[in-house]
C-alpha cells in the first residue's frame, strides 16, 4: 500500500556527496506552501454535502504565474492559498489544470505581482541511479521549509496511487517523503528532476517522485488549454516464450514478437489489431517476446511508446496476422470507460431516490464506500472494460440502499445488487433508469429486476409519491436525484 501525502518534498540534485549544497537560498522562495480547503463527496449518502477538510502541500514556480504541484494536493479544492517561504501573506490561487492520471496540477495566483522577481525552476532529466537529489517542501513537523537529501535507488514503471488505476515511470529515492512534501520539487544540479508525490506506508525513508518526462508531457498536453488524459493502446499481450506456441504461429525461436490476447472495444487498436495477432514492432521499435522494447538504451514495456504520445498522435504497428506481416497506423485516444477503475475527483455523485430505493452508478468511489460482495456486481465491474460491457451499459446501476419506510420495510436483502431491467427494459445508464422510473404514463407497478436477486423488487406506482415525501422528510433528502456529475 502506497501512502500519498498532501505535503511536499524537495530534493537537491547533488552529483557528488562532496559537492557543497550551494543552492542559492532565493530559490527556496520559489517553493511555495499550498493550503487547501476541500470538500469530498459522500458516496454512501450521495444527497449529503460530503466532508469538509483541508491539507497542506508544496508547489513550485515554473513560469509566469505557473505553479506546479500534485493533483492530490488540490483535489476537490474549494479554496487554495499560496504562501512564499518566510512571508506571512496568503495569496488566493486557483487550479488551472489538473491531471489525476499522472497526479500533477498547475495553479495560478490571482495577483502575481509579488512573485514577479522570484527565480523560476528549470527542468532536468531523469536522475541517474545512485545520484543524489534534494527534496524541498513543507512536510509535517513544522511550519517552515524543509530540505532533505536522498539517493536515487530505483527507476521503475509503477502505480500512481492517487487514481489507483494508473501506472507510469516512477523514481524511488531513499529520502522519506512525508505528508506536506507532496508537489515539491526534487532538485539536482540546480534543476528540477522530479516532483515528490508519494511514500510507502510500510517502509521508512522511501520516497517516490514523478520524473520529468511525465511532467513535460503534462505541460505539453495542456498547451492547447485542455488536459486530455493519457491515451491508451487498449491491447493486452501475452509473452511468446513457449516453443510450442511459437511453432503454432510459425515463428522462429528468435525471441521476437508478442501475442495480442485482448483488444479493448472502442480503444485505439480496435479494428486494427485482433486477438491472435503477433505484434512485431511499435513505431519501428522491435517488440521482444515479453512485450518489451529498447528505448534510449533502456529495456521498457512497449506501452512506453504510447505513454510518451498524446491523444490524436499516431503509432505504427507491425504485426503478423494469418502468417502475413502487416503494418498499420493507429490513432491514439484516451479510453474514457477505463476511468471506471480510477478514483474520481471534483465530481458530484449521481443518484436516484425512488420511494426509498437508492440507485447509484457503479464506479471505484462507490465500490470503495460500499464494498460490494455480490458476485454479479463484482463481475460486471471486472469485465466492464475488458469485455466491453460499457458499450451495452455505460452505467452499471446498483440498488445501493433501501431507506426504511412503510413501503420498503419488507424489501430487505436486495441491497448491493445490480439492476438488470426495469419493467422489462434493460437499463443502460442512470439517466435511462430515471426515465424508466418516471414514464409519462405510469404502469400499475414498477418491477425492478436485479442480477442475483431471489425476487424482483415491486413498487406500486400509486404509492410512490407519498413514499417519496416521507423519505425526503425523514432522511432529509433535499433532491431526489442528481443525474449530472
Amino acid at each position: 500500500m502506497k501512502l500519498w501525502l498532501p505535503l511536499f518534498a524537495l530534493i537537491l540534485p547533488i552529483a557528488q556527496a562532496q559537492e557543497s549544497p550551494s543552492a542559492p537560498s532565493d530559490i527556496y522562495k520559489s517553493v511555495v506552501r499550498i493550503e487547501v480547503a476541500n470538500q469530498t463527496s459522500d458516496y454512501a449518502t450521495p444527497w449529503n454535502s460530503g466532508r469538509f477538510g483541508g491539507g497542506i502541500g508544496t508547489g513550485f514556480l515554473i513560469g509566469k504565474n505557473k505553479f506546479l504541484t500534485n493533483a492530490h494536493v488540490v483535489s476537490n479544492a474549494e479554496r487554495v492559498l499560496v504562501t512564499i517561504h518566510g512571508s506571512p501573506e496568503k495569496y488566493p490561487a486557483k487550479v488551472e489544470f489538473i491531471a489525476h492520471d499522472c497526479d500533477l496540477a498547475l495553479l495560478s495566483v490571482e495577483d502575481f505581482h509579488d512573485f514577479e522577481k522570484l527565480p523560476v525552476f528549470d527542468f532536468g532529466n531523469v536522475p541517474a541511479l545512485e545520484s543524489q537529489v534534494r527534496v524541498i517542501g513543507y512536510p509535517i513537523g513544522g511550519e517552515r521549509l524543509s530540505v532533505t537529501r536522498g539517493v536515487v535507488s530505483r527507476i521503475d514503471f509503477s502505480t500512481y496511487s492517487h487514481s489507483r488505476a494508473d501506472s507510469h515511470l516512477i523514481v524511488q529515492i531513499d529520502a522519506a517523503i512525508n505528508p506536506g512534501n507532496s508537489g515539491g520539487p526534487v532538485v539536482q544540479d540546480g534543476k528540477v528532476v522530479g516532483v515528490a508525490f508519494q511514500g510507502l506506508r510500510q517502509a521508512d525513508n522511501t520516497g517516490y517522485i514523478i520524473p520529468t518526462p511525465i511532467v513535460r508531457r503534462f505541460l505539453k498536453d495542456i498547451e492547447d488549454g485542455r488536459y486530455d488524459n493519457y491515451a491508451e493502446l487498449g491491447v493486452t499481450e501475452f509473452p511468446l516464450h513457449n516453443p510450442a506456441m511459437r511453432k503454432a504461429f510459425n515463428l522462429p525461436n528468435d525471441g521476437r514478437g508478442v501475442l495480442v490476447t485482448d483488444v479493448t472495444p472502442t480503444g485505439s487498436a480496435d479494428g486494427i489489431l485482433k486477438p491472435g495477432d503477433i505484434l512485431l514492432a511499435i513505431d519501428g521499435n522491435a517488440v521482444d517476446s515479453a512485450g518489451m522494447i529498447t528505448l534510449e538504451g533502456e529495456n521498457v514495456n512497449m506501452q512506453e511508446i504510447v505513454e510518451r504520445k498524446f491523444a490524436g498522435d499516431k503509432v505504427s504497428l507491425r504485426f503478423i496476422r494469418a502468417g502475413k506481416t502487416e503494418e498499420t497506423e493507429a490513432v491514439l485516444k484516451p479510453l474514457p470507460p477505463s476511468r471506471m477503475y480510477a478514483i474520481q475527483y471534483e465530481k458530484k455523485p449521481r443518484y436516484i431516490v425512488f420511494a426509498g430505493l437508492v440507485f447509484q452508478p457503479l464506479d471505484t468511489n462507490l465500490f470503495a464506500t460500499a464494498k460490494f460482495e455480490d458476485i454479479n456486481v463484482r463481475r460486471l465491474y471486472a469485465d466492464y472494460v475488458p469485455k466491453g460491457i460499457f458499450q451495452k451499459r455505460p452505467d452499471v446501476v446498483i440498488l445501493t440502499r433501501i431507506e426504511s419506510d412503510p413501503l420498503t420495510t419488507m424489501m430487505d436483502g436486495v441491497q448491493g445488487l445490480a439492476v438488470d431491467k426495469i419493467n422489462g427494459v434493460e437499463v443502460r445508464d442512470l439517466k435511462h433508469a430515471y426515465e424508466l422510473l418516471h414514464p409519462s404514463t405510469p404502469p400499475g407497478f414498477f418491477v425492478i429486476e436485479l442480477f442475483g436477486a431471489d425476487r424482483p423488487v415491486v413498487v406500486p406506482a400509486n404509492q410512490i409519491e407519498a413514499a417519496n415525501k416521507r423519505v425526503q422528510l425523514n432522511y432529509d433528502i433535499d433532491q431526489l436525484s442528481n443525474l449530472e456529475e
Partner: protein
Amino acid sequence: MKRLLLLLPLLALPSCDSPGKAAAAEPALQSPPAPPAVPVTAPLELTRSVVRINSTRQTWNDNQPWEKNPPNQRRALGPVVGPNLVLTTGELVGDATYLEFETTDGTRLTPAKVIAVDFEANLALLGPADDAAGAKFFEGMKPFEMDGSPKIGDPLDILQVEDNGVPLLTVGALQGVDVVSNFLEGQYFLTFQVKASMQSAASSFSLPVLSKGKLAGLLASYNSKDQLSDVIATELVKRFLESAKTGHYAGFPGLGLETTRTEDPSLRQWLKLTEDQGGIYVSGVRKGGSAQLAGVKKGDVVLAVDDHPIDRRGYYAHPVYGNLFWSHLIRGEKNVGDTITLKLLRDGQPLSLDVKLVRQEEIDNLVPAYTFGNAPRYLVKGGLIFQELTKPLLESFGDEWQSRAPLNLLDAFENPEKYEGKMEHVVFLSGVIPTPATVGYERLRNLIVRKVDGQDVRDMKSLVDAFKQPTNGLHSIEFHDESLVVYLDDRVSEAVDRKLIQRGIGKLSRTE
C-alpha cells in the same frame, strides 16, 4: 430455500481434526464443567447397545490432486440398530480410509465398512467388514429399539461413555424442532434441539439420544455456550434405516427449487396474492430436478403441497411439531418415486401440478457442493494441471473464499446456468508445474477450459480424450472468456509426463 442457520457453531465434535492417534483420544466435547447432578451414571447394560467407531480420514490435496493430505482420526459413539449394524453421522465417515468398531470397554476391535451413507441427512449405517469377525464382535450386543416420536417438552437422555467404559446419561429436554442443516450448508432436515448441559467425556462425533431407553435420535453437534444440541430426529433416523437396511439406499428426494418469502405487501399485490393466502415465491428451478421436470417455473408461487397450505414465510402446520419449514413435506416425508401435488399461482391464475419426486446426486451437479467418497478428477499434461471445479476446491481459498476465490470460478458455482448444457462439469486449469513444456505459462491459472485440440471439453474424461489428437505435434487449449490459446508440444509434454511419474506423481490423471 434460503434460510438462516440459527446457532450451531458446532463446538461439539467436528472440525477440529486431531493430527494423530494419541491426540485423537482427547475429549472434543469442550463443554464447561457441568452443573452438578445433571449427568447420571447409566445402567452398565446400555454399553451393550453402543460401540465406539474409530475413523481414519484423509482428504485430498487441493493443489496436488494426485495425493492425499496427512491422515487424521475421529471417534464416535454409535448405537447398535440391528444385527451387526451401527448408526453414526455421515460426517464421521466422509473421506474415511479406515473404519473400526471398538467395544466401549476396549476389549474387542473389528474393521468396519459403510453400508449406506447420506451426507445430506448426515447419517451413516455401518457394519463389520468381515461377517465372521463381525458376528464375534457383536456377540452379546443388544440393538436399540426405536422410540415413537418424542414431543416438545419430553425428556431425552444423551448417552456418553467415558474413557474408562462407564456410561453417562445426561438428561435433557426436547426444546424445539426445526428444519435446519446440521452438517452441510443448505441441506435442511428435521432436527431436534435438545437443551442439556453435557460434560466432556470421551471425544465423539456422534452420540445416541434416548427416550425411555429407546433410541430417539443421533446427536450431531453440541453448542456448549447455549448448551443446545442438534439431534437428528427420530422420523429421519427411522426412514434412513428402513431404506439403508435393504442394501440399496435410495436417499431422500428433493424438489430442486429455490424459494423466497412473500411478506412484502407490494410483491404480494403484484403476484395477486390475497390476504388469506400464504405462498412462497420460486426464485430458481434446478435443472433436471423434480420441479423442473414437472414444469414448475421461476416466478411461480407455491401455495400448498398436497393439502398443506404454506404460509408467506414458508412454514406449514405440522400436526405434532407445529410450524415447520415446508421442505420437510418433501425431504422428510416422501420417498423417491412418490408423487405430490403442488398448488401454484402462475400469472395470478391457480395451477395444480403433479410432481414425481426424484433425487439428484450432488456429484452430478455442474459444481458439486460436496465430494465425499469421490476422489478429485484431474489431469496433469506436460505440467499443466487441470481439475474439475467443486465447492470444496473453492473453499480451499480460505475462510474468505467467497471474496477471495477467482471471480470466474465463483461465477460458475453461483450461476451454473451460464455453463449448463455446454458441459457436465467445469474443467479448469488449476495450476502449472514449471517444466520444459510450460515455459512462459507459469502464471496461468483458474482458467475454465473450453476446447482442447478443437474438441469441446465437457468433463475430465472428455479432456483426457481430447488430448489424444495433436495437430502437427501440437495440442491447443482454449478457454472460456479468454481469447488466449495455449499450445503444448506433444513430444515434449510426453517426455515431461514420463519424468513427472519418475518424480513421484503416481498417476497423471483420474477421470472416475
